């Protein structure tokens, strides 16, 4: 029995699926690294992803262009997070409450937009999602080729964000400013950096990434929209950032962990392992939570994490 399950084919598809499922966690997490490094905890990622998911799907469905769908999903994510930025930076609202509020609002609004556009249909509308692209040459490598080089375009793009993130944070003036406003906003201010400006930018980039990941779910991973399409990935992404101690590469590992658990439970279910499928569905979340809890007690938070900045306060 076991030999039949654990074949090479099983592992190849498990690992390929891990990478695919890690993408919609890693991308918003990379976005939130900017946001959280700048000192803003945006708990509204889940809602932002839902907004990106519904916009991406609707635009792709109505125009027939997947790329236009992705672009609109990203812009929606950015606009949605602009509200969060305004609440937390300009209005200096409590970030936990503002973020949770944005989630509830996002979930409701996404469902509403979907109903308005598509109504209630017995057969939900579907599109042709992004298809896998085999990287010429590399995809022919045995095993590795099937694991790494037979994905859709967005997975490749998602992983390209990783070096980009590192480069921006470590090598550019913008990255330095982000770290500074999260660590010591007064110091940044006293050196002429606009704390609010940098924080706005950091939250908007976070929204852009989250919107992209939301659209990924409806136009690249699935080919349709449901109200549960994000399924807590936004929250997991926020947690992954803390697990990752705000470092891009560690965020990738956190996302892969979740992706692996998701892929594993799906395959075990498909094989008919005698465990209730509800329990199996919990597996990725449980694994992720356990890993996060143990890793996060070592996290060194930016000193100004969740603290609004006001120049006049003494």
């Amino acid at each position, binding site marked *: 029995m076991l030999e039949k399950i654990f074949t090479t084919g099983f592992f190849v598809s498990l690992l390929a699926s891990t990478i695919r499922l890690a993408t919609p966690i890693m991308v918003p997490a990379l976005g939130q690294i900017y946001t959280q490094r700048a000192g803003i905890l945006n708990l509204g990622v889940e809602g932002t992803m839902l907004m990106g998911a519904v916009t991406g799907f609707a635009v792709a469905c109505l125009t027939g262009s997947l790329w236009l769908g992705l672009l609109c999903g990203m812009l929606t994510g950015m606009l949605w997070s602009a509200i969060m930025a305004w609440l937390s930076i300009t209005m200096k609202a409590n970030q936990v409450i503002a973020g949770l509020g944005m989630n509830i609002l996002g979930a409701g609004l996404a469902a509403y937009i979907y109903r308005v556009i598509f109504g209630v249909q017995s057969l939900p509308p579907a599109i042709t999602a992004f298809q896998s692209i085999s990287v010429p040459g590399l995809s022919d490598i045995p095993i590795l080729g099937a694991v790494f080089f037979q994905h859709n375009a967005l997975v490749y793009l998602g992983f390209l964000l990783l070096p980009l993130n590192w480069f921006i944070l470590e090598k550019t003036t913008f990255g330095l400013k982000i*770290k500074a406003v999260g660590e*010591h906003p007064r110091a*940044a*201010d006293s*050196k*002429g950096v606009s704390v609010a400006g940098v924080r706005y930018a950091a939250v908007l980039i976070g929204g852009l990434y989250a919107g992209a990941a939301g659209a990924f779910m409806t136009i690249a991973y699935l080919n349709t929209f449901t109200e549960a399409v994000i399924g807590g990935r936004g929250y997991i992404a926020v947690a992954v950032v803390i697990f990752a101690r705000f470092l891009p590469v560690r965020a990738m590992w956190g996302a892969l962990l979740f992706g692996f658990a998701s892929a594993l439970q799906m395959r075990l279910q498909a094989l008919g392992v005698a465990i209730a499928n509800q329990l199996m569905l919990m597996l990725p979340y449980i694994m992720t939570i356990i890993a996060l809890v143990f890793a996060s007690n070592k996290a060194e938070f930016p000193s100004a994490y969740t603290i609004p900045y006001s*120049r*006049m306060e003494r």
Partner: protein
Amino acid sequence: MEELAVKMQGITKIFNQVKANDCVDFSLRKGSIHGLLGENGAGKTTLMNVLYGLYQQEAGDIFIHGAKAEVDSPLKAISLGIGMVHQHFMLARPLTVVENVMLGRKSRRGILLDTKETARELQTLSDKYGMGVDPYSKIWQLSVGEQQRVEILTALYMGADILLLDEPTAVLTPQETNLFFDTLRQMRDDGKSIVLITHKLEEIIAIVDEVTVLRDGKMIGTLNMDESVTKDQLTRMMVGRDVLFNFKENTRAPGAVRYCLKNLCARNAKGVAALKNFSLDIREGEIVGLAGVDGNGQSELCEVLTGLRPLDAGEITLDDEKMANRPPAYFISHGVCHIPEDRHTTGLAMNWDLELNLILKCFYKAPFAKHGLLCKKAIEEYWEKTRAAYQIKANCGGDTARSLSGGNQQKVILAREIESEPKVLIANQPTRGLDVGAAEYVRQKLLNTRGNGAALLVVSADLEELLQLSDRIAVIYGGELMGILERGADPYQIGELMMGKKQEVSVCEA
């Protein structure tokens, strides 16, 4: 008439209807060191923050090198050649020196950082003034003195020829202060104009060319420093009255050992060893002063001695009672009292009534509680009695602790801790942030407590204060006891120990 680098005229700055600066005039001559003297809350820092563009004045004009200037942001100030080193350093700790410097200037490589070039130039500048700063070290790896040099270097690098220094020596040992003053003189001779904010008279006399005194937000006067200016004269200007520099000495000699600490080892909040085999005896009727640069284990020691931090190893004995790793309540019930370092977070419940803050340690006992219910009347009576005895300036016991000034908050804590007739009193920075009058009051109370036979450990960053109060001074460095000096010790000797030079064993008291 010499050229003025800065001229401020009629500056008024209002916070919540309080005038932090009230029509202040201030002039800084080019190429001079100008002292800005005043008590805490006199408005020195506010005035300089206005000049640096962090605050906008409600009224008044600023002239830089003779030209009227609207300094509406630090960026503007920097472009005018003004640099400021704040009392609380404006450095992001996880970043490197060069990263902190690059934050404030345009990169020559556009959106990319020009780390290498900047680091090279910083190194050159550092070498010129003998500051010994490594551009690639992370801020958290540096000592406080080094961080300060980084701040000054940053200001110079940004092209500052007017330097505003806010209480720069508060964190330095006497030796570091001397080196620092040498650097200042060198910079002055290079034509830089320097403002030195301080409340230490010795520094004014040691280095300053001119001094301006502020009190309650008003300018009291500007003096040219020459031999005729005396400490008393400056004090009178600063405080508005004469201050007693000598306390009534309590001649009673210390008695038997009361609090015995043996080989204490403990870790700090990050799990790093903060106390290493620390041993000390404190006798009844004795004040032991603990000197050391901030962050060398003083706070952890105080917490260990009051039961707030677990001990990894070692013994604490109070008379014959073993105290190590007992809960804080056990320490309290055995007469160990604590004036904590930070009155806002540990000392007081800031949003609670004053009368409740006063009985925090005995609220469950008669007469304040009967059958598990609080007796409002007894609490109020006790508050009234204490308020009169400690001259606490408050409207009523129902006011929150937050509504009081720092000095009065400290009086509430003092009353709570001292009225219970402590056997041991651990006082961590008891006068930090208090004005001269309030600090004087606190010190007198500590001496009285000593007179009543308590054993006191007083931690202070103010060496002057320790020299004044202590029967003996213990010096801590890196969590280790460097040595114990008798009353009348040379501040320089203390300074050496504070920097980690261990005392010769022969001098060390057994």
